[in-house]
């Protein structure tokens, strides 16, 4: 009796584990093998057809255009969800040019800068075959407000008449947008002139979706859009596909090329093995937003030199220094940091990926000053002796400083260097590590009185006002503050507001004024810039190197083709 029962225990476990196996073994799913697409109409001589694989270390926050805000989301969304306005598919600064998307021409701006008018192209259809109506645009804006998309408060609710009331559910529609489905006419009223509004219209989050798409983030099954590609086969945090939109050939929008290949995006957090797999040609494209580990660079230089390049995008890495808290309330103390910090050391902490600089506006942006840096050439490494002297002069020597660090490589490593540097020049620094996900809300909470720490800014759009939003006095908020240094300088406030009203297409006419303002910010040492990030462009040997690297979105997937 006893023995039999014991056997039953054993059998139970075996059975239980087999049942689990049977129940879940089938969940493996079947991934269809690559099917070469029918050649889409294309004006470029690149070869059409085939499927390529892109590997990325971080999953998109959501492929739903009205929710996704990370670069990993914007890359595919840009091609699957065209807005009224979009960017030229060109390399370098040519890519910052705004071109009409679903609108027949760039929207016209009234003389007071507050009314934008556009007309929808005829014959547009979503990827599911349904026609696009002018009212779909109004609905898209509503959806971006209600989901809500991360930038909607700042860029939509803050600019369009009635958008805030709609977001707060005090109105059933946005009073500032009128549409006429019969003529395709769209009129948008702004509360105040805003020079970068055309850039706002070009956000993938204003990529038009059908009226009636639910007011809820749909990461597994994003709504249909209009674009050369559509997104399918989404497996959360693992993979998704970008296939050519069968409807696209019916519409031809000048300046938006049809793609050449279908793309499978695979997410794998091990960026080392991602990079190696592209070097070894088992995968085709490495996500530019991932860093290539320095230890692989020798191998890349020997095996893949012709298909690897370093690209610059508009992003600035800096340490914020709180001008309202000791010791950085003293300009001399801030100067000490800018003078002494060794940007070469910082660069080595990120596999040599930083370009040295001292200006808040990055080199690829209109308004980046050409004058030499006010406190020494950053490419030469810091001047420690001078920095020590400045700390003494400022009277802040021995002041305790808490350095806030984000728990993500190499940001944490940058901050451990920074803290040890602050100790070297005469402060008493210690580090406070914050979990990656809650870092910015934490230092954005004024009650925490953050003194100094890591900060960065990647452009939302190529207009200096996107950066200067972070140093305007009006941007100091009690929570989710982005003006971490609490900079409130009347000159910056008035100048940047004035320059920010100039429409993006006319930026070149005010370049020198932006330069002067940016030099002023560097002179006051408000922003402890420690470099501009370069990004890796690495392909397999199957791929044509005749690609477009876009200055806003990185890889232009519609330019990919096989050799």
């Amino acid at each position, binding site marked *: 009796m006893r023995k039999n029962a014991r056997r039953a225990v054993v059998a139970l476990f075996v059975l239980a584990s087999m049942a689990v196996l049977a129940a879940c073994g089938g*969940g493996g799913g079947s991934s269809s093998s690559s099917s070469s697409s029918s050649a889409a109409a294309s004006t470029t001589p690149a070869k059409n057809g085939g499927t390529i694989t892109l590997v990325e270390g971080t999953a998109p926050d*959501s492929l739903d255009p009205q929710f996704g805000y990370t670069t990993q989301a914007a890359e595919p969304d840009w091609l699957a969800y065209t807005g009224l306005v979009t960017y030229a598919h060109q390399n370098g600064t040519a890519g910052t040019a705004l071109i009409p998307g679903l609108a027949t021409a760039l929207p016209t701006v009234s003389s007071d800068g507050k009314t934008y008018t556009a007309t929808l192209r005829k014959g547009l259809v979503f990827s599911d075959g349904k026609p696009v109506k002018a009212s779909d645009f109004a609905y898209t804006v509503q959806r971006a407000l209600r989901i809500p998309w991360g930038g909607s408060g700042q860029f939509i609710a803050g600019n369009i008449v009635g958008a805030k009331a709609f977001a707060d559910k005090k109105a059933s529609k946005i009073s500032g947008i009128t549409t006429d489905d019969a003529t395709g006419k769209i009129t948008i009223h702004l509360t105040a002139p805003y020079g970068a509004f055309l850039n706002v219209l070009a956000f993938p989050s204003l990529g038009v979706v059908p009226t009636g798409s639910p007011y809820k983030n749909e990461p597994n099954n994003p709504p249909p859009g209009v674009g050369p590609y559509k997104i399918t086969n989404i497996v959360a945090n693992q993979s998704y596909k970008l296939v050519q939109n069968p409807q696209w050939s019916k519409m031809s929008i000048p300046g938006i090329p049809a793609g050449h290949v279908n793309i499978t995006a695979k997410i794998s957090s091990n960026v080392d093995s991602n990079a190696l797999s592209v070097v070894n040609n088992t995968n085709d494209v490495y996500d530019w937003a991932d860093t290539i580990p320095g230890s692989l660079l020798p191998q890349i230089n020997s095996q893949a030199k012709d298909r690897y390049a370093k690209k610059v995008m508009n992003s600035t890495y800096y340490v914020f220094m709180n001008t309202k808290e000791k010791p950085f309330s003293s300009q001399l103390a801030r100067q000490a940091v800018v003078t002494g910090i060794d940007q070469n050391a910082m660069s080595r902490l990120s596999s040599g990926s930083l370009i040295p600089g001292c200006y808040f506006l990055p080199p690829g942006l209109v308004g980046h000053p050409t004058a030499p840096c006010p406190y020494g050439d950053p490419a030469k490494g810091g001047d420690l002796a001078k920095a020590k002297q400045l700390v003494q002069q400022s009277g802040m020597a021995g002041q305790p400083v808490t350095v806030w660090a984000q728990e993500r490589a190499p940001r944490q490593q940058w901050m451990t260097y920074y803290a040890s540097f602050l100790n070297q020049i005469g402060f008493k620094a210690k580090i406070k590590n914050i979990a990656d996900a809650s870092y910015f809300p934490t230092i954005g909470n004024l009650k925490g009185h953050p003194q100094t720490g890591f900060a960065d800014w990647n452009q939302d759009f190529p207009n200096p006002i996107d950066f200067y939003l972070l140093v305007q006095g009006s941007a100091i908020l009690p929570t989710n503050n*982005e003006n971490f240094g609490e900079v409130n300088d009347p000159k910056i406030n008035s100048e940047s507001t004035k320059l920010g009203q100039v429409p993006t297409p006319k930026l070149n006419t005010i370049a020198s004024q932006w330069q002067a303002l940016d030099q002023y910010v560097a002179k006051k040492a408000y922003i402890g810039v420690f470099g501009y990030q370069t990004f890796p462009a690495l392909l397999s040997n199957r791929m044509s190197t005749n690609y477009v690297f876009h200055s806003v979105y990185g890889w232009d997937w519609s330019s990919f083709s096989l050799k």
Partner: protein
Amino acid sequence: MAAFAIRRILSAIAVMVVISILTFLLFEAIPNGDPALRLAGRLATADQIHQIRVKYGFDQPIYVQYGRTMKNIFTGQAYSYTQGFNVLTEIKQGLPATLSLALGAGIFWLLASIVVGTLAAIKAGKYTDRVLTVLSMIGVSFPPFFLGAVLIYFLGYKANIFPLGGYVKFTTNPWQWFVHLLLPWFTLSVLFIGFYSRVLRSTILDTIGEDYVRTAKAKGLSERQVLLRHILRNSLVPIIALWGLDLAQVIGGGAILTESVYSLHGVGQLAADSIGRLDIIPILVIVLFTAFVVVFLAALIDIVYAYLDPRIRLA
């Protein structure tokens, strides 16, 4: 008997409820953990934060939030805050990798420890036993992330025999599935082999002294027959019970270190990533899932043992 079983199951449910409340409170207590601030993004305005707080119900009392979250989990409507994915779907997508890891490693470590443990017991006190003891001790001292890094470095980067990580579906390519899992299986097993073989060794040594073994020997059965038929069979019971519990933990995401060093994208890595994102919903679901498997298996074992041995019921 039925009363005992019901009592045991009720207490298992109580444990589950307490675990869910504790997990919920834990993430509520995170400093600067206000999920609305994280969700709103870097350029969020005060209005937008408020809007999110209302939309997700973060403004409601904590017990209301708890009740709603639990209801969502049990109706399959649990969505991650930061990414919007249905958590159950995500777990289902991670399960093939985790199950492949758990079952493959489980079978390997069980068989290997039976061989090692039996050998050590037969040779108890001799040289072989001492060597096996030291080897077991080395095994239980190896953290999987270190062993994984060492194996990846020597066999992946240097010798180029194995991939550097990742999971390939069995249905995609059975051979690649096998190759990608070999190192993870080994890494996870080393710990368990060291430990199980020690347990088995001492259980066998205990069993050898029992009456029925002496009887069997007296009946003239050979050493080998006694060992296989009587000693080993009875000594395996506690090992298999232990194996069931450990396997349950691994399936429930307990192999978090092995999964993350080999980027297997299983349930364990989902848990680790969600913790990194401070995304309470997936963490809660995975914790409950693991606890469920562990608590109910333990209850089941208790009930089965109570059925075998009535004295336990009185305790």
